[in-house]
């Protein structure tokens, strides 16, 4: 978590360093798990199962970042952080985890690779910042790799959601049917379909925003680092 801290509370500092180090380690473990799986099996089948526990744990812990933003521990916009974390946690817990049929689809390794590399660099970067160092190489990685990783991740996510539509429709997962006393119904597969226009609308905006952030950050003035997602 970035902390352009002027008035540094040592306990807060310690906690943030601990958090970012732990997250870096966690995602590295996931990364190693992914590489390991491909070396051993050469296929993405079973990949999710291999890294499931670590993924669930470390992606879900990102919820703490929302708290950090709300409490002001970190100079990030709480709403943006919420949206970012919510979409990740949503995909993991509300799509991949419950819909077993989707776990071996090609979108999963795509999003796993994109998320893992992004997160390792991101948390590593924050750790350094908190320690008072601004390593230009990590800064460069952070603001350059997204050019490939962001579209890769989004493609993986949308493919995964797309592949979940049929199984969800068949099983009626998370769906409420009529008639009932509340006169209310939810068709989860329609909810999932609604995510596509959202991706369509927001992806270009966020992608361009990141290019703008890149320009600012790599201008040689890396102290202007502001959390971009």
């Amino acid at each position, binding site marked *: 978590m970035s902390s352009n801290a002027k008035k540094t509370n040592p306990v807060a500092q310690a906690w943030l360093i601990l958090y970012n180090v732990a997250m870096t380690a966690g995602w590295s473990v996931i990364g190693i798990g992914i590489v390991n799986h491909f070396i051993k099996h050469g296929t993405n089948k079973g990949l999710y199962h291999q890294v499931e526990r670590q993924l669930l744990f470390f992606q879900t812990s990102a919820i703490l970042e929302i708290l950090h933003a709300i409490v002001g521990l970190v100079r990030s916009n709480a709403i943006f952080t919420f949206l970012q974390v919510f979409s990740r946690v949503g995909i993991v817990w509300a799509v991949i985890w419950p819909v077993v049929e989707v776990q071996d689809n090609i979108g999963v390794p795509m999003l796993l690779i994109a998320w893992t590399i992004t997160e390792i660099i991101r948390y590593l970067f924050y750790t350094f910042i908190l320690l008072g160092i601004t390593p230009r190489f990590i800064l460069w990685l952070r603001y350059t790799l997204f050019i490939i990783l962001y579209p890769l991740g989004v493609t993986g996510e949308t493919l995964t959601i797309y592949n979940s539509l049929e199984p969800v429709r068949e099983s009626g997962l998370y769906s409420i049917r*009529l*008639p*009932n*006393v509340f*006169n*209310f119904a939810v068709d989860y597969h329609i909810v999932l379909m609604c995510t596509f226009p959202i991706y369509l609308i927001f992806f270009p905006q966020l992608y361009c925003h990141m290019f703008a952030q890149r320009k600012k950050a790599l201008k040689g003035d890396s102290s202007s680092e502001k959390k971009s997602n």
Partner: protein
Amino acid sequence: MELQILHSKNKSKMCALQRLSSATTVRDIKELFHKQNPKFYPSRQSYRLEPRSKSLKDSDTLGSLDLSSDGVLYFKDLGTQLGWSTVFYFEYAGPLVLYLMFYSRLPFIYGEEYAYKPSSADVVKIAAVCHTVHYAKRLLETKFVHRFSHGTMPIRNLFKNCSYYWTFAAWLAYFINHPLYTLPMYGDVQVDMALGCFIFCELGNLFIHLALKNLRAPGSTERKIPLPTKNPFTLLFALVSCPNYTYEVGAWVSFAVMTQSLVGLLFASVGFMQMAVWALGKHRSYHKEFRQYPRSRKAIIPFIL
């Protein structure tokens, strides 16, 4: 006196205005700028003393702004603007039409089996009337009652607002007019009482709007604290700053109870949250503006908020 107009984004020189005086207002500047740059009509222009400082008011004079003779103003383009009334007409007409489409069960909504065969249930018919009257009332108020202090809003608000109103109206209408609609569990008692509350709240909301309109005579700039009038519906002013919002929330909660619709409740809740924010803001402005503003008043819910 001469003034340079610079663009607030890149400080590039846009134009220079001459023969100004300390009595020239920001409004006058906007007119002059518009003559030189026809694309930027006045309501689209915003000026600041610094590239990122607050927008200046139309009524501010150059003299009051402490600008030296080689003064500089920073320009910002607010984007395409639409009148408030225009936006309101669109955002209210949508729900009115959409709900009736669902009520008449157009074929593409519930399928051919139910096409053009509205429900025979009384409550469903009553709900259609209530919903339609509500939005018809809003359209009429926009035309004849409301007086808007800000002339325009950016065009993206049109899309934002219409998305909200139209989507919710369709979602609400879909379930109430559905062939598998479940009647209210307490039957006629529930429907009649909730309908009574709905009508009461609609009237209340209307009378508050009228009272607010009559608070100031046309042409006058006098600002007054709203107080209860001879109309008993306006007694709510004694308890809250924005009784129009109170009545509005009441109307939608009544509608939700009458139709026993969860989406109705959701709509009432979301509306309440937004109106509470507006009410608190208005309440604060009233306090700031009037020293003797009644302390016992709350913003939107008597005694509570």
